[in-house]
């Protein structure tokens, strides 16, 4: 009796088993649109708060605490935006392509939703990386733009994001559109190593890797710290924006399913859900460059 209790205790406490169980459970629950919707309604605001907190701390440290660079003086501080944003542009693409591959191989609906909702966010980050880069380039290099390997490949990435979004909107049948989009994002993943290694492979005006360089970061800790805050903060922003966008998409995709209908009936009295739809849409408009949810809006209005 005593022994078995102990064993049970060990089983539940064993952190690896416990966390694995938690992860696989979460994974399976997130695979279902309904479970995702329920869970993400709680996590999304947390992501938003974490993003705000971390990026504010990062901004403060980056602007006021980190010392000026010996060569660039204060103008190097744009690095704290440019670098994390550029990382995100590639990270989001990798997430997108991985989700696309998962969706195609294991036929998981939610994976396609991740792919499609990531595209506009990734495009926005890519555009921002190019923009901040050229603002930085003018005083330091002496030019807004050069056609060198890093800049060109990042621009290609932006076009690729546009192509992926265009493919999604070209098909009327949603399932076909989702798979076609996933396939193209998987094909396009070849660009990622090209971007990453472009500064090493080709002589370039753009500098080499500072943080992920051989022999550790070539940057003192007081500069590295705000950079890390900003990077993690933007990561949470991605999670925040992605989940908001995915919630809308899930509702749109599943608007005929029982749980959405029941939810509408349950909450329909005070019209709260309908208002939520509209708010969600309004908040998302800024992110969704191509007006992701216009069709959804008319459909959802049918309920009320």
């Amino acid at each position, binding site marked *: 009796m005593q022994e078995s209790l102990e064993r049970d205790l060990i089983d539940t406490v064993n952190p690896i088993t416990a966390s694995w169980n938690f992860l696989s459970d979460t994974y399976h629950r997130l695979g279902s649109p309904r479970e995702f919707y329920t869970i993400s309604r709680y996590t999304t605001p947390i992501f938003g708060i974490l993003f705000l907190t971390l990026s504010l701390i990062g901004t403060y440290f980056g602007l006021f605490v980190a010392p000026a660079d010996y060569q660039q003086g204060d103008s190097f501080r744009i690095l704290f935006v440019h670098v994390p944003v550029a990382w995100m542009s590639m990270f989001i693409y990798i997430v997108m392509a991985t989700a696309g591959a998962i969706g195609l191989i294991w036929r998981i609906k939610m994976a396609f939703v991740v792919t499609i909702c990531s595209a506009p966010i990734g495009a926005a980050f890519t555009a921002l990386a190019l923009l901040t880069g050229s603002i930085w380039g003018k005083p330091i290099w002496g030019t807004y733009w050069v056609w060198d390997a890093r800049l060109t490949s990042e621009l290609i990435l932006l076009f690729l994001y546009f192509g992926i979004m265009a493919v999604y909107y070209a098909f*009327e*049948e*949603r399932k076909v559109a989702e798979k076609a989009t996933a396939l193209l994002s998987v094909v396009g993943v070849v660009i990622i190593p090209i971007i990453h290694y472009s500064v090493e492979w080709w002589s370039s005006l753009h500098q080499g890797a500072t943080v992920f360089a051989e022999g550790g970061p070539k940057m003192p800790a007081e500069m590295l710290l705000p950079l890390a805050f900003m990077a993690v903060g933007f990561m949470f922003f991605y999670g925040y924006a992605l989940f908001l966008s995915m919630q809308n998409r899930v509702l749109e995709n599943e*608007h005929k399913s029982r749980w959405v209908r029941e939810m509408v009936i349950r909450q329909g009295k005070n019209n709260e859900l309908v208002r939520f739809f509209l708010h969600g849409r309004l908040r998302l408009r800024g992110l969704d460059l191509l007006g992701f949810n216009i069709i959804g809006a008319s459909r959802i209005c049918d309920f009320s």
Partner: protein
Amino acid sequence: MPSSKVISVKDLSCTRGDNQLFDAVNFSVSGGQCLHVTGPNGCGKTSLLRLVAGINFVEHGEISWNSSDTANNPNFYSECAYIAHKEGLKNELTAIENLRYYQQLDSGTDEVALDDILDKMGILKCADLLAQQLSFGQRRRLSFARLLIADFTLWILDEPFTGIDTSGRNLIESLCVEHLQNGGLIIMTHHQSLVDSPLNQYRSELKLGRA
């Protein structure tokens, strides 16, 4: 041809956009049987046939051929023939060239067999006409000629009697009967009753769509 072949469909459903065309379709067809799929327009007859043929992607449900999954199953693909509205004929090739193309894909070249098949289908005289010069009925006959170039066990026919004259219809029906008597399987759609057809005795019916 061994008669042990069987195709069975379990719990198959199909959605287009937001509309569910059909849900939980179950059937099983074995050698010598003809499944006649009926239902109103837009109820998913063609979709069902395309799912079974392996052109469309199965989202929900299972389709098995001799109890192994049909998806990416070369054994199934080499025994299944699909004839639909789109005939699969190249306009810029002649009738016999079209047929030869399919024959070469499957086995090898056998000119005598090609002539025999065209003769059987009653279009030997237009063997050297370009496919675009053939009449609609002749094109249908040519596309059915493809069923005979190899030993296909399962014939999937989408509205086989559309645009074809009475003698053509009789010809196709007799081909189907012969195929069934040899232990073959047929899954077909046809919007009219087949009660008067010689196929009737082999026929079982699957009604799709809400009544």
